[in-house]
């Protein structure tokens, strides 16, 4: 079972209009509302692929219960922490000529007592002994910058592995604290964390290794259409999916995380370790991510969308190769 935590969830409200006109009354030809936020997306992708998952997130009086009910329909279990401020609604207006207009709310401010409630709910979820705790997304205003690091230490005390997919100061604090067993930065996030340009595969591998606590840990650096690099203390692998037609990249990174963790559970069950295990995990991660980009906005892939055999893996690509030349 995989527990995810989303500190700043939202409802993604998508309105489709034929041609968006500012200062006019626009009529939606269709619309949909989806529960979102990085951890929630990971849980939804896992549930679509029949992996047991619990999503933890703060809930207000109206939007939170709607998210809970929507996730229940998708077989995602939930644990919520009540907060006073509204959970965000983000509006996306998609125009049929391809223009997209987004309006995002800032989201709630989290108080010190909210934060204590987050930690105690996470602690009770850790007592369930999940396979993984996923800490995903940036931290909302008000939360301590070392909150992920703190929760990660708590998870380690319970013997629960931690996956970290975030950005900004909260990510940096947690990444350097050595609490993560798995991280999935994209190249820009890794560069920001390192404060360097990381032009070659060797640079990415060396910096990633500096963040690995031990030989059980791994990092997958996502490279968009150029696939992803997986790094452990022992080896590094490069995987690419065959060219696909891209519909929406929103949520693809979350599917990559979900794919990796789903394969991790399978690999442990079947005792597939070492480079072979890493190959299976990376292949699944890239396959789920590539499946997601081929689907419309906010649609998550199920087993019928995932094409594992279209992912090609190469062990230990030349470290002198520039990432831009991959």
């Amino acid at each position, binding site marked *: 079972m995989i527990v995810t935590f989303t500190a700043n969830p939202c409802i993604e409200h998508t309105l489709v209009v034929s041609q968006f006109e500012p200062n006019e009354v626009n009529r939606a030809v269709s619309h949909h509302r989806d529960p979102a936020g990085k951890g929630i997306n990971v849980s939804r992708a896992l549930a679509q692929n029949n992996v047991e998952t619990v999503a933890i997130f703060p809930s207000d009086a109206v939007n939170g219960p709607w998210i809970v009910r929507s996730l229940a329909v998708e077989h995602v279990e939930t644990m919520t922490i009540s907060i006073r401020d509204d959970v965000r609604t983000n509006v996306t207006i998609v125009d049929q000529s391809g223009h997209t207009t987004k309006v995002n709310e800032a989201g709630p401010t989290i108080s010190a007592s909210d934060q204590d409630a987050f930690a105690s709910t996470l602690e009770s979820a850790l007592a369930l002994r999940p396979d993984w705790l996923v800490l995903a997304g940036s931290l909302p205003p008000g939360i301590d910058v070392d909150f992920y690091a703190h929760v990660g230490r708590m998870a380690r005390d319970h013997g629960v592995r931690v996956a970290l997919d975030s950005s900004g100061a909260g990510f940096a604090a947690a990444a350097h604290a050595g609490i993560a067993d798995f991280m999935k930065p994209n190249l820009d996030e890794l560069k920001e964390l390192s404060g360097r340009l990381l032009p070659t595969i060797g640079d990415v591998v060396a910096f990633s290794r500096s963040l690995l606590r031990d030989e059980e840990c791994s990092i997958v650096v996502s490279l968009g*259409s150029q696939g992803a690099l997986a790094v452990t203390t022992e080896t590094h692998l*490069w995987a*690419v999916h065959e*060219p*696909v037609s891209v519909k929406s990249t929103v949520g693809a990174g979350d599917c990559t995380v979900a794919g990796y963790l789903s394969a991790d559970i399978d690999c442990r069950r079947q005792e597939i370790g070492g480079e072979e295990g890493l190959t299976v995990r990376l292949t699944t991660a890239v396959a789920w991510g590539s499946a997601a980009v081929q689907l419309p906005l906010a649609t998550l892939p199920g087993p019928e969308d995932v094409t594992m055999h279209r992912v090609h893996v*190469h062990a230990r*690509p030349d470290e002198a190769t520039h990432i831009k030349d991959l």
Partner: protein
Amino acid sequence: MTTSDHSVLTTKDIVVVDLMAETKEEATRALAQKLVDDGRVTDLEGFLEDVAAREAQLNTGLPGGIGIPHARSSHVVVPSVAIGTTSKGIPFGAEDGPAHLIFLIAAPDGAHDEHLHILAALARKLVHDDFKESLRNAKTPAEIAAIITKEVQK
């Protein structure tokens, strides 16, 4: 037999403008024959079997009129991308219609990562409509080969 420059992925000798073919098998065979004639593939039938094995798993057609048959094969001498264009289109299994641009990727079997480099470079370029447009608008094999050398060759 003289062959083209094997250090580049695509030369004018392995590009066919207005491919004469009705099916993806005919299109793939015509392009594979070009690779054999250019000394890039040693065994036409063996190579076609490897391409067909991949194609049998899942269609390689992409929305937007693209077909990407490909194989890593022991019958391939050097990494190559043979290209065919067709204005009337050849069915490659994409939902939205036939393929007008066909990339036949041939990569040698073995421990090298050329196959991944070609796939990654094409994946990166095919997102851009102007790349596809420039290939469709090209009139001669030499023009197409020059575009591939500039945009895809690392």
